[in-house]
């Protein structure tokens, strides 16, 4: 592991009026890695990223990117980073390739724009005005403009939001190739599969605080078994607690909604029998009982008590 982190956030606090968006966040990103910042909407992901990009000055704490202060050393830093914002960021009348060429011209040694457009499938819509691009095309153009300047660090905010599965895979492959070629990638996402597939390091944040971080394997602890129970009508009050009691301390029970819950622990026949017996006792009818390996989604749910939005 290299000694100087590409990105270092220490004790960052950011508030909007009374609302605390980032609450004492510490985070370090090693060079040449993909780091995913994972969290629900409003967790403080974008605020953290925008502080790294020099848009916002830290209210407390410090941020360093490539050893530089993003606001004080902005002119030195900006050519070295690539930024993909959430949402638009282009003139409504600009054609897709025209926008990409324009950003390329602002850099000293840009990538070949045609090559990049091939990679991201932008040639089909190269002459289309920005306002007529689909959401996925706009996202791909945003990614292309973020990497065209051959940056050392790329910040991508929700890169695959609104993309179809093929475009998502293309984007993932591009991000992996960036890492292989020595670029450091920091991405925010609320897609578990994206974080699990891409990231060397995952930081889960919720309400502006870091609640867990580690490699995907660390976080899922080698894959404990889980059972997701969904019932046909809402559980009676106190259901999770009574099921927890029935199963014993080796197993954890986390409510997901009033008709579903997550059981993590040894999913053996004893556990299954206990769950089935408990359902009968409570007078609820199981609609589905899914056995699986504990994945990032389960970890997230256990940590935050929130289910992430799905596609």
């Amino acid at each position, binding site marked *: 592991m290299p000694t100087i982190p590409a990105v270092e956030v220490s004790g960052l606090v950011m508030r909007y009026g009374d609302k605390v968006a980032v609450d004492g966040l510490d985070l370090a990103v090693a060079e040449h890695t993909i780091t995913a910042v994972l969290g629900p909407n409003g967790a403080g992901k974008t605020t953290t990223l925008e502080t790294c990009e020099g848009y916002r000055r830290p209210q407390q704490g410090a941020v360093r990117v490539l050893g530089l202060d993003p606001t004080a050393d902005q002119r030195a830093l*900006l*050519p070295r980073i690539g930024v993909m*914002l959430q949402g638009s960021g282009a003139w*409504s*009348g600009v054609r897709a390739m*025209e926008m990409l060429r324009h950003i390329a011209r602002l850099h000293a040694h840009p990538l070949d724009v045609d090559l990049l457009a091939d990679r991201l499938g932008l040639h089909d819509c190269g002459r289309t005005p920005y306002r007529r691009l689909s959401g996925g095309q706009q996202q791909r153009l945003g990614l292309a403009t973020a*990497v065209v300047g*051959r940056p050392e660090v790329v910040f991508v905010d929700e890169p695959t939001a609104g993309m179809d599965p093929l475009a998502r895979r293309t984007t993932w492959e591009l991000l992996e190739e960036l890492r292989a*070629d020595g*670029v450091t990638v920091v991405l925010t996402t609320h897609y578990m599969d994206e974080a699990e597939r891409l990231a060397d390091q995952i930081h889960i944040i919720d309400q502006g605080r870091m609640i867990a971080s580690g490699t995907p394997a660390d976080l899922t602890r080698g894959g404990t078994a889980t059972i997701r129970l969904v019932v046909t009508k809402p559980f009676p009050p106190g259901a999770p607690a009574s099921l927890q009691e029935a199963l014993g301390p080796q197993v954890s029970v986390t409510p997901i909604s009033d008709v579903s819950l997550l059981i993590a622990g040894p999913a053996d026949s004893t556990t299954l029998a206990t769950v089935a017996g408990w359902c009968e006792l409570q007078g609820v009818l199981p609609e589905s009982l899914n056995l699986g390996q504990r994945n990032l989604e389960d970890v997230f749910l256990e940590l935050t008590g929130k289910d992430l939005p799905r596609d």
Partner: protein
Amino acid sequence: MTEVRAEGRGTFAPRPGAAPLTRQVLAQASMEARLMVRNGEQLLLAVVIPVLVLVGGVAGAHRIGIHFHERAVDALTPGVLALAVMSTAFTSLAIATGFERRYGVIKRLGASPLPRSGLLMGKIGGLLVVELMQVVVISGVGLVLGWRPHTSVVAIAGAFLALLVGTFAFASLGLFLAGALRAEATLAAANLVYLLLMAGGAVVLPADAYGGAGHALGWLPSGALGEAMRTALTHGNLAVGDLLVLAAWGALGTVLTAKTFTWE
């Protein structure tokens, strides 16, 4: 696509760096000019309305009871040039900038190597390119209609200065408007101000055509720009007072913009 890897370095191997500032500014200026020319409404404002005003004015001034000291085409063409500068530097710039803020364009460029000063220079460059095209078209139409402008060095320099200082004044006010209001409000206000000044701001018609109010109109940026153009191209003189009035408006606009403008 096959990957091109030279000496173990991949396609995306970092090689960061900002382009030289002049190249960035030229790129920005050409982008701004292209976007402005591509936009139908802005083209209407930039060329079609001034040409209609010129042709209509020359053909119909007599009939609506306006009398000039000179031939109508000589009196009107400099004012229409002033109108064209106003439409681009003020109205088009304000509207474009308002929507750039709304669509996050300025924010996006804020993360690029282009510094804010470069963005501003690029915008001014874009305005000057469009204004040059307007001058060519309007002067051409004027000449066809029989315009005989002064062409002495002082006259040309005076007109050029009027265009530059007028652009400074109106652009600073346009940016102030775009920074202070939301995009739609900017659109409405910039068009309204343009129409009011075109009709009553002594830009196309000389200040004395407005009777008693004429003197006061000379203090407006529109009146000052119109007078500066007329003084140069109709009388062959330099309108120092009017240029100073424009510079003062420019200074005011700059201070207001600096105090209030936010990039998002």
